[in-house]
């Protein structure tokens, strides 16, 4: 009960801060909480919003699938060989720290405008964190598991699927959780630069028109989505917790 009260208080504080900021900054910079919610309710009832949301969703799922497959594959492969992991980690981290914005021209030149660029952006943002988490998950695995697998004379595939994967699952899920957010961000950014469809495009469009209410309504929608997804990951986390 106290817990819920605390959460409510935090929310109330955030909304109060928001309103205050609006009063200071004005319509050109922000929309008030009321205006934002109103716009969002309006928006959710339009067909075009959902068309755009579907665009984004589709690109996001593609990007997520690729980021997961690539990230887990890469991370596990590197994690299994100690030398490879030590060599690769700084490279991965440096690649990740590059402001991806500077690589956008390269992506656009390679993929053109359209959905493949969006997916590329998404993968670009999500793959490396997932790989790093997967790699560390493997390195933290108890060595005795691998020794057991050798004594039981399992094939590499059996070792990978029946021992390694379950052993690293909690750590891996943390990485996927982060990769999820980042991939979504990547896809949105891709839409802002390289597309005439999708939620990212809605934002850019609204920015051009100075329509703060729409921008914030979309942001609110995305935040709500992120919170729900996060909640699901939390439950998943609790389920795999042993």
């Amino acid at each position, binding site marked *: 009960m106290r817990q819920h009260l605390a959460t409510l208080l935090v929310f109330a504080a955030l909304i109060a801060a928001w309103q205050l900021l609006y009063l200071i900054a004005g319509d050109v910079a922000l929309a008030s909480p009321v205006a934002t919610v109103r716009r969002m309710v309006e928006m959710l009832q339009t067909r075009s919003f959902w068309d755009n949301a579907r665009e984004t969703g589709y690109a996001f799922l593609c990007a997520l699938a690729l980021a997961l497959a690539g990230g887990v594959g890469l991370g596990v492969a590197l994690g299994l060989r100690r030398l490879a992991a030590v060599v690769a980690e700084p*490279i991965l981290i440096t690649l990740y*720290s590059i*402001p991806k914005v500077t690589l956008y021209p*390269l992506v656009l030149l*390679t993929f053109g405008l359209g959905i493949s660029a969006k997916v590329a952006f998404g993968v670009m943002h999500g793959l490396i964190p997932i790989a790093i988490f997967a790699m560390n998950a493997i390195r933290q695995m108890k060595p005795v598991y691998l020794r057991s697998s050798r004594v039981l004379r399992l094939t590499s595939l059996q070792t990978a699927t029946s021992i390694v994967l379950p052993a690293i699952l909690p750590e891996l899920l943390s990485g996927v959780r982060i990769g999820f957010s980042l991939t979504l*961000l990547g896809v949105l950014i891709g839409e802002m630069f390289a597309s005439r469809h999708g939620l990212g495009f809605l934002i850019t469009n609204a920015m051009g028109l100075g329509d703060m209410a729409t921008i914030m309504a979309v942001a609110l929608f995305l935040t709500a989505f992120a*919170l729900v997804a996060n909640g699901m990951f939390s439950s998943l986390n609790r389920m795999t917790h042993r």
Partner: protein
Amino acid sequence: MTSAGWIRTAVVVAFVGVVELLCRTGLIPNTVLIPPSEMARELVSILEGGEMTGDIAATFRNAVLATVIAVAIGFAVGIVIQAMPALRRSVEPLLASYYSVPTFIFYPVFIVLFGVGDRAIIAIAVLLAVVAMITATLNGIDRIPPVLKKTARIYRMSRVRTALLVELPAAAPYLFTGVKLSVAYAFIGVIASEFILSGSGLGYEIAYAYNNFENRKMYALMLLVLLSVALINSVLDVIDNRLQSRLRR
């Protein structure tokens, strides 16, 4: 350099070599990517020419400032949140979802509050970096072994001395991870802001070059960003290793 370092260098050199080859033979068209050697040559001439120095300095200065502010605020907020479990439980989902929202859409707010220019850019960068530091601070304080705090109490150390002499060193490796992330995010935040919504700085120059089809200049500057990031990371890594070795049993 360790053997891993040599192998890493070899891998990077090999990769660059392959890209160079692919560009020179035309398998990667020049409209998409220019050979790395060309990028380097252009970069050298730009640096010698000196016309970019102002922009470069502005970017780095902003990034450093943003880092310092983000680390300070993140650390302070992290301590506060850690001390109040109820607050923490309510705030944690928000912190976890934070990086899903493209925070630079709030740029207009900062323009209004701080005016156009460096301050707004720094504000965005701080906004991006601060949550990473908060999370790292929370994590670091969590991981201080309780037995160390008990030891401090047996020594009857004051709260302040316990915090400075026991808790801070114990949490340092994790806090430093937060600093590393803050540096990365601050850099990303500054350059992204300059790219999209500014009139000066490295990010802006890259965007300008892209829009004007000045591929050579664009790639040279991208190379500069890449090299700077690599250098900064190496330095941070060295410090990090010193700290991490304390954790190894």
